[in-house]
């Protein structure tokens, strides 16, 4: 069984696609999400093999969602849309397949076949992802979009990843790795990313460790491993 996740903002569309997929007898739908944020969370947790992804969704569209997924858990993607042939053509090479709504069972069967052979080949799903220019965070039942430039630092804890800005700290579903790869935030510690523009000073401590003092007076640890890179970036 292929483990699939459906992402579409319309309930009826999700429902219909789930039934169609189940009717093929080859797909197990592990979840269906109404927006990108839910999707990132589900992908990180459920590790689906394939994503049936609507392009037009509120706030964060399908394309942008892809850039929020960690490469390690990146599933194959089948775009589903009502009418976006232009956008689809542009993306054709980079996605496994695309479906037009309403989806016919025959067409869906072909997609599943394609999917099966892709999974059999074992090639990882690699999508050319764009840089993130906003980080979706959750803030009191609302989605807060934080621009990477506005971030002071990012901290990963047991409770999750927190984006710290002068306005406060926000929880995000994105992983540190995604943020490191697709923004200018720099890794300074296993659990920390820092915005170099917000660095006030770097205090060197013995045994190759250091501490970063941010402009707002926060102190961040710098581990041995990342100090070197940090120094290079700062031309020290």
């Amino acid at each position, binding site marked *: 069984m292929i483990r699939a996740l459906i992402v579409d*903002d*319309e*309930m*009826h*569309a999700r*429902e*219909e696609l789930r*039934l169609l997929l189940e009717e093929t007898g080859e797909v197990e739908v592990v979840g269906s999400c109404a*927006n990108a944020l839910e999707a990132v969370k589900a992908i990180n947790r459920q590790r689906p093999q394939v994503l049936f992804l609507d392009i*037009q969704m*509120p*706030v964060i569209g399908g394309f942008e969602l892809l850039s929020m997924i960690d490469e390690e858990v990146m599933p194959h993607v089948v775009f589903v849309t*009502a*009418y*976006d042939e232009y956008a689809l053509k542009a993306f054709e090479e980079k996605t496994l397949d695309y479906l*037009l*709504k*309403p*989806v016919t069972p025959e067409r869906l069967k072909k997609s599943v076949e394609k999917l099966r052979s892709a999974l059999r080949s074992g090639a990882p799903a690699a999508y050319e992802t764009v840089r993130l220019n906003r980080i979706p965070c959750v803030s009191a039942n*609302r*989605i807060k979009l934080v621009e990477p430039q506005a971030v002071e630092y990012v901290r990963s804890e047991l409770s999750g990843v927190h984006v710290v800005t002068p306005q406060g700290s926000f929880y995000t579903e994105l992983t540190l790795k995604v943020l490191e790869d697709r923004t200018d935030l720099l890794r300074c510690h296993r659990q920390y990313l820092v915005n170099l523009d917000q660095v006030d000073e770097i205090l060197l401590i013995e045994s190759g460790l250091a501490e970063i003092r941010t402009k707002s007076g926060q102190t961040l640890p710098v581990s041995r491993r990342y100090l070197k890179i940090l120094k290079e970036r700062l031309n020290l």
Partner: protein
Amino acid sequence: MKLIFALLQQMSVFLVIAYLFSKSPAFRPLTGETLRARHKLLLYFIFSGFSILGTYFGLPVQDAIANTRAIGAVLAGLIGGPLLGTAVGLTGGLHRFALGGFTAFSCGVSTTAEGLFGGLVHLWLMRRGQPEQVFSPKIAFAATFAAEAMQMAIILLLARPFADAVALVQVIAAPMMLANAAGAALFMSIMRDQKSMYDKFGVIFSGRALKIAERTLGILDKGFKPATAAGEVARIIHQETGVGAVAITDRDKVLAYVGLGADHHQPGTPIASELTRRAIEENRVIFADGVHEHYTCTRAADCPLGSALVVPLRLDNEVIGTIKLYEPKRKLFLNLNRTLGEGIARLLSEQLLRSRYEEQKRLLVTSELKLVQAQVNPHFLFNALNTIIAVLRKDADQARELLLHLSNFFRKNLKRSGDLATLEEELDHVNAYLGIERVRFEDRLRVEMAVEPALLPLKIPTFTLQPIVENAIKHGISGMLEPGVVRITGRIEGEKAVIEVEDNAGAYCEELKSGGLGMNIVDRRIRNLYGDRFGLAVSCRAGEWTRVAVTVPWAGGE
């Protein structure tokens, strides 16, 4: 006593000449407000002529001449100012001097002085801001009387022997002062009447022209295309000008004919007149005055018409037809009607040009509208179908309802090519659209509707409301994670009806304000129809709300 009668007698001859002068083209310059140098020169010759004639008509009295020479000089001064007055006075004076006699010198001097005096009176009136008094017979009488008194004084001063001068003045003073003053006054009165006749003539002329302009206004809004338009215009021109007959043609055939000979000049028949064909080909006015050139009807031998004016109707300098004025054989074609005819043609050409411009503007909007209508958002269509397919599995009745909404929506989209629809029909269209979107978005879309029932029969341009509501959903609500609300309200504000569509997304202000998302055409249609006081107003607060207000005239539900 005898002398005064004699002088009055020669004055009468004078007045006859004055009357003829006032009827001649040479009088024309005097009807204007200001005199040009060329006109002053003409007046100089005319009044000098009068002055010299006055001397010739004079009666020999005691080796002198009792005369009406002063009239020319004083009037020239009054009408044309000191320079003209002095010039005429000098000319008349020199002439008198050349004739000799013991008063030759004094008369020469005094005539010049009289001209100058008339000119000074002219200046005085101008300074007092009473230029119209220049033509007052009373002023002319007083000025001439005073000028003649001055002449008597000059004769007494300059003519020698003094005793003879006294004797002469005793005889001629009273008759000359009276006769000249009366003559000048009558002369002026003739000129004034003639001048006011010209004015009245002008008033009648412009009155008629304005009336035709006013009455034809609007008839040609759609050009000559409606079959009745040309006939209507021809009828109005016929009534207002009072000419024998009026015809309007296009390049090939008679569009309308009103008046004498209507029995054989039938609208719809090809152009028969050589004059008309010439006017069209050569793009110029053709005038057969009935004297030098005759209009000859080729259709009927007993046609009563004898003269015709054919004026081309031009559109962008291209002849699109003619307008023809006819007079019967027994009647003279008035110059007034000729000028009027040419003016009317210009007027109609202007109106036709405007109508063509309006037509093009309308076509442009219509074709843009068609384009917008044809652009049924495919996203909407396929999503709607997808929703219906999904609903069909669970709830056939709801699916049925959705399909009815969809078919209703499409029928409205396809059918409504007309310009106006009632607000009720517009809301029906909106409701069909919302019926589907509500199911698609489920609890993410709430619709609130509060339209005053009195507004339902209100006529508004078709396709006004639905695109606005669609924008609110497509660009507003659909981008929201939180529940979206679309509020449609309709209220009456005095002479205006305001229909508002508001969403709580506040997501697409700039696009709307720049007239994008199809709002431009909605706005332009309303402005075209009702004027700039009406139209679309967009306001918004980013992230909070977007409001589009449609304002149209409200006439109290008629």
